């Protein structure tokens, strides 16, 4: 992992947040979902990137969740973790159990799909361009996609 100084911040970070803060592309252990609003099989998800807003569940910090009918808001969502590849899906499954939403795996896959698509769409948009910042942005997206690939299996919280 590249060590990137972020002013001593304790806020969790991923390649996207490091790029936003420093303009650098760096490998990070975790990837968090991009901010998205999606509807899938009757449930509307709004996922933010307030990475410092969390609730403790067992030994793990997990996102803050608010539920209003079929609308579920999450302050953030981890979508990949190189050190604990089973954790991302495990957290989401625990949250969905709490929210009484069935087919958590399908929903999680859809969120992963939406995130990967956003990264790939941005790569496509960058394709015709070449400058230092564009190259760095591409590198950042490669890191984000790589970290998101560390989403393997699941575990109980």
């Amino acid at each position, binding site marked *: 992992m590249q060590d990137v100084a972020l002013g001593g911040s304790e806020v969790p970070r991923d390649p996207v947040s490091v790029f936003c803060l420093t303009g650098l592309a760096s490998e990070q252990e975790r990837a968090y979902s991009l901010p998205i609003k999606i509807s899938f099989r009757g449930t509307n998800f709004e996922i933010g990137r307030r990475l410092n807003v969390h609730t403790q569940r067992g030994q793990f910090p997990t996102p803050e969740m608010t539920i209003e009918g079929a609308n579920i808001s999450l302050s953030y969502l981890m979508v990949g973790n190189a050190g604990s590849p089973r954790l991302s899906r495990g957290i989401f499954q625990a949250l969905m159990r709490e929210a009484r939403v069935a087919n958590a795996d399908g929903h999680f896959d*859809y969120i992963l799909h939406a995130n990967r698509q956003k990264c790939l769409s941005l790569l496509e948009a960058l394709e015709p361009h070449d400058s230092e910042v564009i190259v760095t942005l591409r590198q950042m997206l490669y890191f984000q996609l790589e970290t998101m690939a560390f*989403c393997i299996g699941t575990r109980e919280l």
Partner: protein
Amino acid sequence: MQAPMPECADWNWSEMLDAFRSLGGVAENVVPGRGVTHRGLSPADPSQPVLLRVPQNLLFRSADVEFVGDGMRIRDSAGASEAARDFFARYESAFSWGAEGKSESLEVIRALDALPPEIRAALMEEFDFGDVLEGDFTTRCQNRFLRSRELLWANTPCIAPVIELANLDASGLACEQTESCVEIAGHVSDEVLVSCADHDAFSMFRKSGCSSREPVAFSLPMQLKLGDREIVIRRNRHEAIKRGPDRVPITISAGGKIELSYLMIGHAKFPRLSRGILRTLLREAGMQGADEAFDCILRLNTMKFIKLLRACEPHRSETISHLRRAARFQLEAMTCCIGSRELEPVS
């Protein structure tokens, strides 16, 4: 002794279609066209449907094709009639290999040969490009031509004259297959395109040197150990069986090891199918942990394509652009893996 190659450069389209029809083929409303990338087919009258049907006797196994001098023909031993073999040789000379097929193949192989050494090495080591990038130049051009024109019929790579002239595109006409023929039919406004379910973005690059967005992605060949289990994945798309509406790989399993002839890892139109196939096949082989195995396979594929994208970063050329796009399209199709569904039982 096999007959010499027929002289046929002066065969025109209408004469060729007459011969095609006399051997049982059907061709309605199609004329030679020129697609965006390579030669192709067009409707003679765009207000009318096109129809092309190639009967069994004109479906030639790629393995039965031989190149002789500047031409190509079907081996005597193939079991095809003399009339069919004569048609094939004349057709190839006038409209396919002898027309632009050969020069196209030379161009593609030259472009791939001109890739930077580290990209060529990555393609050979990680992406199974050995037969495209290594060996005798002429043989590679001939093989590339066959790979780019063949389709799977009865799980066998075959050349279907006339249909093989159509360019491939995911939005094209479906290639319908029965036991007795291969057929495309429908309305097209401009170019006759054929959709090819057997190819993903990366295999399209491999066969054409071009990038095209495909709805499906298949895993790269790999071997992985997960605990006491071993999973071997090949990329032999023609080794498949039907289970209900789904085409699934052939498996061989024994003693904690399973070998799959190929594995789909994403499909934009059937996003639950990829994981469903692996779950079902591993369960039937008495193996657990299919979800984790599937995630691992996805991850390994993702990492390889991102590594390739990184390797392409410092380079600029038309082939590099196609390669980058092909890798991106492959990753895109791989994202289409959402949920899971059961397969129908083996009939």
